[in-house]
């Protein structure tokens, strides 16, 4: 992974782009999971949501 990517001529940190992608992906995944009530199975639902986001972000950053 390059540390900076060129977006329309400006050098932007690649992590930032992955972050934005992870946020969007998180919303896509989070909405059906919340609707189904899966988070209620966890001890600490907000922490579980945050953990999902961390997993997505880390996966995107490490494996691309």
């Amino acid at each position, binding site marked *: 992974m390059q540390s900076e990517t060129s977006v329309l001529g400006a050098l932007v940190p690649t992590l*930032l782009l992955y972050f934005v992608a992870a946020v969007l992906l998180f919303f896509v995944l989070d909405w059906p999971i919340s609707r189904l009530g899966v988070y209620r199975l966890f001890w*600490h639902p*907000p*922490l579980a949501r*945050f953990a999902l986001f961390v997993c997505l972000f880390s996966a995107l950053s490490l494996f691309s």
Partner: protein
Amino acid sequence: MTALEIANPRAPGPASAARSPRAAEGRRVAAEVAVSQPPLQPSAARPFVREAWVPWIFAAKTTLSALLTQLIAFTFNLDEPRWALLTVFIVAQPTTGMVLVKSFYRIIGTFTGVVAALVLVALFAQERVLFLGALAAWIGICTFASQYAKSVAAYAFVLSGYTAAIVGIPGALDPGNAFYVATARATEISLGIIVTAAVSQLIFPMSLAETLWREIAETRVGLADYALMALRGEDSQALRSKLLGEVVRIEDLHASAIFEERELRGRSEALRRLGAVFVEAFNSCQSLTTLRQSAGPVALGADEATAEASPAIAEWRSGRIAAAALGERLLRAQARLPLIQPLSRDASVSDEELMAASLAVARLRAFFACFAAFGNAYELLLSAPQRTKEDAPSATSADWRSAAWAGLRAGAAPILVATFWIMANWPDGPTAVILSAVVTARLATMNRAAEAAVGATVAVVLGTGPAFVVIEMLMSQASGFEMFAIVVAPVLFVSAFLMAHEKSPVAIIFGFLFALYFASVGGFANQTVYDPVGFINTSLAVIVAIAVGALLFSIVAPYTLEAARHRFARAARKALAQAADPASGITPAEFETTVVHALDPLRQHLAPQRPDAVAAWETGVALLGVGRELIAVAHEAEATPARERFARELAAFLSRPDTKRLERVRQRSRTVVADAIADLRGGALGASMTRAAASTIVAFATLEDELARGGDALVVH
């Protein structure tokens, strides 16, 4: 005989004895007030400010303070004027009580923070991990203290926490100049504090007293209207929501009153009493609206009582009679209610109808008593302030648990951001760490921080564009302070305007965080330069700081409704166990204080658009009735087998609440009522035993009903 004693026709015991001195005192004070001057009116010394103007005036004053600090900072060539601007928005408050005292404590806090920062720099400047860890610990401790100390000293703690971050981090990065950095920051922050205090005090000072009297007067009128509707058997959703909002407001006012003028501080106890009585009266009105289903002799008696009571309430509402007269007329209304004994001798009335009748009578009696008590408490509040020994800490002193969580959040924020800073070698890390400390420490003092902070993050992201236009395009073209002021003032005005909406915590936080963002990225200096790269980088840092704050508020002990229900259930169980135990000696006043205080976490979630929060709060309030009856019943000597079974079931339910046990407790209380009805109808009792049986019917019927309404508050998984 006072209204309260008639409402509980039982053998005199410690319970009613504890009530009568207070009721007698209330009557005496009310009589004095009715003779002396009318309730507090605004005077020339305190010009009347209409409520709709408050946000505009506050926004104008804050913008003026901010521009003034910038003018002074530019004139004297201070290093970083943005800290003065930021401080203005951190300390600005719409009400102006004790401004000088608060500013004094804030400056003390600033200097404490500076000293702490210099100590940390001297110890750990070479060891960044230790330094940041110690700094986070200091911020956490200061935030904990600011939440726990419900006195003016809290203001000092708020400031000392993040001032240490503001001074310490630049100081640690450049230890040789740390002392100069410290004096520069202390100057800028103190400038912000002093200018805000001066403008706030000198220009259109708006004291909390006016808001208080206005809210209390609205509460009184609203409650009277609701009571009149309840007596007619109608219900109004809009009025209920409004009164629920009043419940929240009165308690907030009470919490702020101790930080205001002495005249208000002295009334804080009376205000607390009014809040508690208001909750009971509101609950009582609500239980009346379901009363209209009863038929037969009870309905007849109830109509006569209502015919006596409604005009009395209407006249009290319009101010034609005082609380003492209201109390007497409500007493007369109570006397018209049917008694249980003659009803029981009427063979045409079945057992179920008798129980329903006794329940209806009990509710009406309780309603009259609560309303009379509200009238007395209201006039007690309006009378001369009590001589308090000092700033007596009231029952609203925060529990240490929520203060500890606030401290943990405030300490965790700089650690998280600093970890990322160190590992990513982020050039803007210092800004992000400092602002994360500021955000979490300041948001800890505000309500509904979690949801508001998340929304504010998005708002700031979206506001980056407009801010860029203002700062990089307009401001860089401005020459001279006047043009600078014209460019910057609208943004500041809008942010401060949002901060002034005391009824909407979300708007307050939105305004505050946007002002924080604007002050941080503004690059306000004597010579403004066009620096878009710096703007974007700093924007990222600010957004990270706010996002970390929002994250921590959402994850670390979030103020969810579930958590609030658990806390309330714990406290209520303990209070009810004490109430049911004759040996505990708890008085009704103490029980009421404990439960109303325990309702606080539930009250913080109250909003008209949240029916689950409203339902949770209402079931909690119904437990007040349960406790009252339990205390009265516990003082009666006789113990039949049925009552002993009831006591055992109740103890079992309180130790492990679930729906089955609740059902069994209700079943047992119905058995007690049935037994008492059978005794009464048997006709073989003497005079005192007849009275005791009648009161048992009323008490246990009420218990069963209130448990039906409120038992769910205790059954929390």
